[in-house]
C-alpha cells in the first residue's frame, strides 16, 4: 500500500517536473521571438499563415457554427417550454453564442485543424532536417517559422470567431423561424434588445487567448518532435490534447475575471 502511494507520488512529481520544463521552454521560445522579430518582422510568412489559419478555416467553421446555432435554437425551445416565453429565444442564442459557444467551439475545432496542422508541418520539418537546414543558412527558425504562426493564430481567431458568431446566430434564426415557429421579427427584436457590447468583447478577448494557445502548443510540440513518423504523430496528438485542455481551463479563468471582476452586472 505504501509502495503504491509512493509510486503515485513519484509519478505526480515527474509529471509536475515535466510541466515546469515545458513552461520553461515555451518561455524561452517567447523570449527568442521577442528578441528576433522586431529586428526583422516576417511579414510575408505572417500574412501567409493568416490566410492558412483564418481564411482556410472558414468552411469548417461555417458548418460547425451553422449546426451549433440550429441545435442551440432547438435546445432553447425545449427548455423554455411553458417556463420562458419563446420571444426570448433569439436573446438566449445570441448571448450563449457570443460569450461562450462561438469562441470555445471555434477554438476547439481550430485546435484540431490548425494546431494539428502546425505540429505536423513543423514536426516533419524537424525530423527531415529542414529546421537544421534553415539554421545552417543562418536563418532563425523561431523568427521564420514560429513567430508568424503564433502572431497569425492570435490575430485570426477573434476574426474567425466573429464569423462563427454570425453564422451560429443565422443557424439559430433558421431553426427558430423554420422549425420552432417563432416569427423572424420576434427573433431579430430579441437580438437587438439583448445585444451587449461587453458580451462581444468578452468573447473576443477569450478568442485572442485561445488563438495564442493553439498556435503556441502547435509550434512547441512541432519544434520538440523527435523520431520519425511516429514522433510526428505523438507530437500532433499532444499538441491537440494540450491545446483543448488549456482552452477549457483558460476559458474558466477568463470567465471568472471577465464576469466576476471586470464586467459585473452591477
Amino acid at each position, binding site marked *: 500500500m505504501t509502495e503504491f502511494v509512493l509510486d503515485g507520488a513519484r509519478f505526480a512529481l515527474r509529471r509536475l517536473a515535466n510541466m515546469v520544463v515545458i513552461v520553461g521552454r515555451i518561455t524561452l521560445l517567447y523570449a527568442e521571438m521577442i528578441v528576433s522579430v522586431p529586428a526583422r518582422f516576417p511579414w510575408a510568412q505572417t500574412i501567409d499563415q493568416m490566410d492558412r489559419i483564418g481564411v482556410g478555416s472558414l468552411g469548417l467553421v461555417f458548418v460547425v457554427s451553422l449546426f451549433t446555432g440550429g441545435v442551440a435554437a432547438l435546445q432553447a425551445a425545449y427548455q423554455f417550454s411553458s417556463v420562458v416565453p419563446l420571444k426570448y429565444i433569439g436573446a438566449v442564442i445570441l448571448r450563449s453564442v457570443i460569450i461562450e459557444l462561438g469562441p470555445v467551439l471555434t477554438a476547439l475545432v481550430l485546435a484540431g485543424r490548425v494546431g494539428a496542422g502546425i505540429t505536423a*508541418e513543423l514536426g516533419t520539418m524537424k525530423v527531415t*532536417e529542414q529546421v*537544421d*537546414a534553415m*539554421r*545552417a*543558412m*543562418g*536563418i*532563425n527558425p523561431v523568427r521564420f517559422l514560429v513567430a508568424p504562426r503564433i502572431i497569425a493564430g492570435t490575430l485570426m481567431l477573434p476574426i474567425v470567431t466573429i464569423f462563427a458568431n454570425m453564422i451560429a446566430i443565422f443557424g439559430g434564426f433558421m431553426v427558430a423561424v423554420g422549425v420552432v415557429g417563432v416569427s423572424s421579427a420576434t427573433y431579430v427584436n430579441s437580438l437587438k434588445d439583448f445585444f451587449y457590447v461587453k458580451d462581444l468583447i468578452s468573447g473576443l478577448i477569450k478568442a485572442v487567448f485561445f488563438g495564442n494557445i493553439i498556435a503556441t502548443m502547435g509550434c512547441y510540440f512541432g519544434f520538440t518532435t523527435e523520431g520519425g513518423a511516429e514522433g510526428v504523430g505523438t507530437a500532433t496528438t499532444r499538441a491537440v490534447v494540450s491545446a483543448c485542455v488549456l482552452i477549457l481551463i483558460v476559458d474558466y479563468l477568463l470567465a471568472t475575471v471577465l464576469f466576476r471582476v471586470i464586467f459585473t452586472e452591477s
Partner: protein
Amino acid sequence: MIQIRGLKKAFGEKQVLDGIDLDVQSGETVVVLGPSGTGKSVLLKHILGLIEADAGSIQVDGEEVVGRPEHELNQIRRRFGMLFQGAALFDSMTVGENVGLGLREHRALPHGEIAGRIRERLEWVGLAGVEQAKPASLSGGMRKRVGLARAIALDPQFILYDEPTTGLDPITADVIDQLIRSMQKRLGVTSVVVTHDIQSAFKVGDRIAMIYQGKVVFTGSVEDAKTTDNAILRQFLEGSSEGPIQPL
C-alpha cells in the same frame, strides 16, 4: 581553414565523438569515412554549431564555434553551405524559393538579380528551368542537386556534404561527385564530405579521414589511403566483416 581539437559529444550513455582532432586546409576537400553510426553527420553539425559540443574546440578561420551564442553562430554559418543527407528541401516552397531563400534573407538584392542568381545556380547543377517545381515532384538525384544549388547560392567559403551520394544509382552518384569537384574548382571552396561510399570518396577527396569509435584513426592523401596498412581503414575499404571494426 577548419581546425577541430578534442571534440567530444555524448548522447545519453553513448559517447559518439570522443576527442576528434582534424584539420581541413583552405581550398581542400577532406572526405570523412566511417561506419554508420560513428558520428560523421554529428561532426558536420558541430562544425556549424547546430549541435552543442560537450568539450573541445572548432575554429573556422580562427573563429571559435563551440560555445558561441546562436546570433553569433548565424554570422559564421553564412560562410557555409551544407548539403544534407536527404537534401532537406523546404517542402512548402518551390525549387526557386528554396535556392533563393538565403539570398532574400541575407542580401538586399533586387528581385531580378535574385531570380538571375537562382537561374544561374540551377544551371550550374544541371537543372535549368525547374524553378517552379515543388521538391516533392523531384527524383532523389534532382533533390540533391537542388540542395547543392541552395548550398552554393551565397558563394560560400566552405561546403559541407552529408552523404551526398547515399541512396543514388551509380550514374547519378557520379554526377553528384563531378558537381562536388566542379564546385571546388569554380568557387575554390573548402569542403568536408561525409560518406561511406568508397568510390565517391576517392573521386572527390584530396585527403581522407577515417573515424572509428569517436576518434580519427587515419588521415592522409587518397593515395596513402589506398596503400595504408591501417587495419581499420583497410577493413572499411575492403568492405569486410572480418577485422577490428565490429559490425553493429
